[in-house]
């Protein structure tokens, strides 16, 4: 039957379909081309439909030839469709591009106060060692703030010029001048041994200027156990200093005087910026330690046995150590804050400068 396409004609059909598909650049055009070359009325479909008209012995050969042509067309279509889909998607992605540098503020920027953030960090260091966090009120009994800590009745710290008293002053209540009353609260309420730190707000009848605040924050530490002494104090402070300022940080204890510790010491840390290289070296001044090489960090010492006695603790069996440091001051030298007034004036920019783990 000469009506059926011969091999060459089939090849031409495949080729024509392939050409049409290649010319189509959109999925719509491609589908139209498919309709024309592989659809119901396409030459190859028409040829296929007529296979039944052939004598039985010819059907197989013709069917195979036409089937191969149809498969070739369909494959050409599938390949082209995939390519056009990719091109289509590419075009869409280009069209959908946004300016990724636009702001993405979905809520206001909040921040912890640097003093709060630093307090958390220091507390974490102690909690990791098994210490607990002790607390006490800001308006406190004078006895807990002074007498129990071996301050004599005439100690200058009790003067109205130094300590803020609740009215009337003869009522023996004050705004705590340090976090140390929490030492006595802990010793009176906790089972021995005691290992606590007490962060909190303290008050002094002090000036209000760039380097003084009448209200500031301290972190107090107290450990009372069998056999504790200066070695344990130094080891603990070294650990804290390294956790806060890096593994190489050195500390130094200088003898000093506090009523509630004996021996007492001032604690310095090696300047973590210049490492002491600014000392006597005017060409390389250091702002952080004022070219002194060391930064005063706090006071400390072995708990005066008189304090333990006031808590009813047997000083032949127990001894301890205590330390206190200023949190605001630590923020000052650690984060380069220049003016303490910024800590209390509430300018939102102050807190927002320190974010995340960079606090």
């Amino acid at each position, binding site marked *: 039957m000469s009506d059926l396409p011969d091999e060459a004609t089939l090849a031409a059909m495949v080729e024509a379909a392939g050409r049409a598909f290649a010319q189509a650049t959109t999925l719509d055009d491609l589908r139209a081309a498919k309709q024309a070359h592989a659809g119901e009325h396409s030459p190859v479909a028409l040829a296929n439909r007529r296979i039944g008209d052939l004598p039985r012995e010819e059907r197989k050969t013709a069917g195979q030839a036409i089937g191969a042509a149809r498969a070739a067309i369909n494959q050409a279509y599938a390949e082209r469709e995939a390519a056009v889909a990719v091109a289509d998607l590419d075009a869409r992605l280009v069209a959908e591009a946004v300016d990724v540098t636009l702001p993405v*503020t979905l809520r*206001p920027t909040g921040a912890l106060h640097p003093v709060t953030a630093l307090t958390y960090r220091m507390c974490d260091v102690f909690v990791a060692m098994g210490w607990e966090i002790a607390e006490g009120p800001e308006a406190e009994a004078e006895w807990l703030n002074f007498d129990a800590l071996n301050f004599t009745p005439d100690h200058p710290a009790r003067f*109205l010029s130094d300590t803020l008293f609740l009215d009337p002053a003869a009522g023996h209540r004050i705004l705590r001048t340090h976090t140390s009353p929490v030492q006595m609260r802990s010793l009176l309420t906790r089972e021995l041994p005691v290992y606590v730190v007490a962060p909190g707000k303290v008050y002094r009848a002090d000036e209000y200027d760039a380097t003084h605040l009448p209200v500031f924050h301290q972190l107090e530490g107290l450990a009372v156990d069998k056999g504790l002494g200066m070695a344990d104090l130094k080891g603990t402070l070294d650990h804290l200093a390294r956790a806060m300022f890096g593994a190489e940080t050195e500390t130094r204890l200088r003898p000093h005087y506090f009523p509630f510790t004996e021996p007492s010491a001032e604690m310095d840390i090696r300047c973590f910026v210049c490492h002491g290289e600014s000392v006597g070296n005017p060409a390389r001044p250091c702002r952080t330690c004022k070219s002194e090489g060391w930064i005063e960090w706090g006071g400390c010492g072995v708990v005066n046995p008189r304090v333990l006695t*006031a808590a009813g603790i047997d000083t032949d069996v127990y001894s301890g150590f205590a330390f206190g440091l200023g949190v605001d001051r630590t923020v000052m030298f650690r984060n380069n804050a220049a003016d303490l007034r910024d800590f209390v004036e*509430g300018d939102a920019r102050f807190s927002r400068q320190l974010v995340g783990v960079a606090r």
Partner: protein
Amino acid sequence: MRAPYSWLAEHARLSATPAGLADAFTDAGLQVEKMDDPAAQITGLVVVGKVLSAEFEPQKNGKTISWCRVDTGEHNPPGETSRGVVCGAPNVVAGAFVPVVLPGAVLPGGFVIASRKTYGHLSDGMICAEDELGLGEDHNGIIILPDDPAPTPGEDALALLGAREVVYEIDVTPVEGYCLSIRGLAREAAQITGGEFVDPYAAPVPPAVAAGYPVELESADCPLFVALTVTGVDPARPTPRWLADRLRAMGMRSVSLAVDITNYVMLESGQPLHAYDQTTLRGPIRVRKAHAGERIVTLDHVDRALSEEDLLITDDSGPIGLAGVMGGLTTELTTATTEILLEAAWFTPTVIGRTYRRHHLPSEASRRFERGVDSGVAYAAARRAAELLRDLAGGVIAEAVTVAGAPRELPGLTGFDPGLAGRILGAAVADGQVAAILRASGVTVVETADTLTLTPPTWRGDLRDPYDYIEEVGRKLGFRSIRPRLPVAPAGRGYSRAQIARRAVLDAVTGAGFTEVIPLPFVGTDDLDRLDLAADDPRRSLVRLANPLSEAQPYLRTTLLPGLFASVNRNTSRSLEDLALVECGSVFRGRDLGPAIMPDVSRRPSEEEIAHLFGELPGQPRHLAGVVTGDWLAKNGSAAQEPATWRHAVFLAEVAAGAVGATLVRRRAAVAPWHPGRCAELGVVVEGEFRTLGWAGELHPRVVDAWGLPARTCAVECDLDALIAAAPAVGQITALSKYPATKQDVALVVDVAVPAAAVEAALTAGAGELLESVALFDVSTGAQGPEGQKSLAYGLVFRSAGRTLKESEASAVRDRAVAEAARATGAVLRS
């Protein structure tokens, strides 16, 4: 305490350099705050010059210079009798002695001096001002050197100016009174640097004797009084330069020879002395407490009313001195005084401290008496002053001396275990080292089998307890020898529930967009007035300070809002207008309280005493408060602007409640300082009862005006302790249904006054347990609906724990929910 190195070296053989000694002092607890060594900053010569002539020459540039001829003695140019120097200072005059910097010298700051042509002359050196030599700040003119006695031209001007002296400024702690003297510091310097100390004041106080001027001690607060008479003193003798220089180096000025001598001996020995014109004394000296109504005119010509606690030196005429603080005018030394009675006494430190504070008369003497003077040095000090009066003023020391009383006995310590020092100090302390150090500190040490018996020297009243001696050993060993050891604490329980909760709240609210501030916690009644608080508002139960920092804000805050409002104003004044601030802090509630107790410290307080100490204090709950103003979100190019409203104030409380796991309930309230129509009372429901925690909303326009806040500022404040206490201890997890949910929406019309929360509560109650959640997704009023009504659209989600709900079952539940809403709130299903 100031201390010139040269003076220390007079009494201690020192091998340490001045810088080395400074470090050693600091390591021993005598912190060197400053070391003045001006000459070390200068190289080359600065010599005395006598100005022979000074001619003013006006210049074209408007300045006037002086062309000076200056005699610099041996440093004059070869063959000449003076050198020419151009000077710009107005105070240079012929005849004056001035410091001249010679060419080749380098001044502080690297300023090189050379001969140079200027203003038509060859200026061969520089006449300088204080600041140019680094000796002070003054640049108003050149230094004019003292001319009585006249210095020699060409001699070292820096020595004359005291600039060759290394002077330490040492921070002496309250218990180191003995270091408020050159003698005490020299002893320490020798001990800590391995030098040798020779005590210039070793002579002990002789037994009591009344041979000299009669003295009667009538108060236990003066146990020792030495009186020594010097006659034939020439009042016209000047103070020698070495003595005046020493006083100046110590920060004291020269007054007169006799007074300078008493000051000099005080600085050297630590024993304050007083000098009376003996001819003005009337009858025996009596030391006693003041009588009621008594008065004294002190040396500063002030007529003072005395307290019965003031310790006085008196004679038959009445008070002639405030003991240890200031002498009286009637017995003062004058330019005619030839007969001097020297007083060297010991007074109870606290008595002197109270007196000088009462009369506002701090002085070098009272400061020393307050810290505790060596009671063993009184006689030697009086003797030394008398000898100086003899040597410098031609006086004759009377043979007969009065010693009333005796030096105080300091209690010793027995049974001291020397091994305790090493254990407490955490350092290796060799056998015998403890005793050796303490002996070098002046302690009398008696060694028994394994303990020591210790008696402190007369100047070490601070050595009482075993630990005082341990500290002394530690100071002398230096704390550098401590071998650090990290103690192992018992297993801890971590943060307490409340601590975790507070931190979670602050982390959550700052994470949600609020910025934490920590304002000062003081308020005045004006602040509360501006909050519109009623007279009986509990926030007016104030705690007053006896000595407030500011009379305008003498109270402790009862609310965090004033501090937050002040912070807002601070920000807006700096052009920061979009604010969301939060504070977490204590407020103080005034209560009627009697005086707090002051139990004996030699024992543990009783349980009743502890309960009183802890309980009898103002209430101090921690509050959480916030303020929002301006835009919560400003227009930012990709998102719409969102002004801060009451919702953001409530949001803060909701975030806080969420952080602790509490469920906040809200109802309308009219509470100051909020807008009565836009104020939510915040609470929790505990055992079916609403418990108020605080309020949130827009501020009352009057309050906004009174504080000068931006219009429509919103605020929130709640009791954080109570919120945390109301949170469930442990959350519950119920089994999750694996079946699909059925969702249905309802729109209900209610009166505008009906709170949405009431409708929601009724829907929840009516639906029962098949209702999984209810969410309000639309509120509309006005145009479409009837007047005075609003439409609330809710999305209801139903789900069964055990099966898939049929649509019809869900509808039936929904109908029950709507019916309950209708019953409880008058809601009508919108068709």
